């Protein structure tokens, strides 16, 4: 059974997670701009790689909205570091590693029997409120069209009107 994600209108639970062995990212530090949270099941598995690689290519579009992108999985920091280096990932990959999946659970994005996060997307507004969420079948890369539509609505822009 699919997890029940936190719904739009819910304040996004704050968290602090390691992005690298000696750096952490706190969600509250990003207040003031839209934030995209991309929970994904694992580094290295083919579909995830494609999803994170895709978002890496689309990063300039996200930044065009002033938005920050955070990838989150239960993989540890060293695993993320190797994965990010291999795929030349230019955004933070956060380790929801200890206690395992604690942040994903608070977002309703944990797969209990698999011990991984769901493939779940959240778009938060500048005040840290969830404005859009989507849970993809775990084997399907959800692409980025839903994220961009949510950012369009958030920023009052119409699709394709950006320069």
């Amino acid at each position, binding site marked *: 059974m699919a997890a029940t994600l936190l719904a739009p209108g819910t304040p996004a639970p704050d968290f602090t997670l390691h992005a690298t062995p000696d750096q952490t990212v706190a969600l509250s530090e990003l207040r003031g701009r839209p934030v995209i949270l991309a929970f994904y099941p694992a580094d290295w598995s083919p579909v995830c790689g*494609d*999803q994170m*690689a*895709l978002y*890496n*290519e*689309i990063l300039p*579009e996200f930044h065009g909205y002033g938005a920050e992108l955070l990838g989150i999985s239960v993989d540890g920091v060293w695993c993320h570091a190797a994965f990010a280096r291999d*795929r*030349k990932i*230019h955004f933070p990959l956060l380790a929801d590693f200890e206690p395992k999946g604690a942040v994903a659970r608070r977002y309703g994005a944990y797969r209990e029997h698999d011990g991984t996060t769901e493939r779940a997307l959240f778009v938060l507004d500048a005040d840290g409120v969830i404005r859009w969420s*989507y849970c*993809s079948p775990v084997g*399907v*890369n*959800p*692409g*980025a*069209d*839903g994220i*961009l*539509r949510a950012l369009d609505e958030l920023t009052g822009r119409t*699709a*394709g009107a950006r320069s």
Partner: protein
Amino acid sequence: MSGGLTPPVGPDDHAAGPAGAPVTLVEYGDFECPYCGQAYPIVTALQERLGDRLRFVFRNFPLKESHPHAEHAAEVAEAAGASGLFWEMHDTLYEHQRALTDARLLEYAEAIGLDPRAVARDLESGTWADRVRQDFRGGIRSGVNGTPTFFINGERFDGAWNDPGEFLAALTQASS
């Protein structure tokens, strides 16, 4: 979650096959992507099989971070397209997708009858970069989630393109 192909196929697209064909297959592809390379002979076989019932459209989706030569390859294909030689370049690139340095791209341009110096100038000044970016952005909006991504009559095909039987069945169903 795909909202369908945005923008729809139009006069600016590179299309092979009749505009009135009952099935239009759109590929968002990257010339350096090995999966797109695998898809190339499969699509060619489908084109032969379906003949005038199929129109095939190619749009650029270069994954520049993963494939360092993909952007220039896409721009060279667009340069060829401006001279009516898009498909000649498309086929050449997929048949040589492990050799896509700028020097090789210019050799391919010359081999199909383009002036390599003009193509070199186009690459230098990024003449076709906007066109490629436009394809890429349209792809994101359409729900492209990797390469290759196919659309059959405007709907994303999430089946197995690498299963020729399944791919053919989807196209045949769309044509009826």
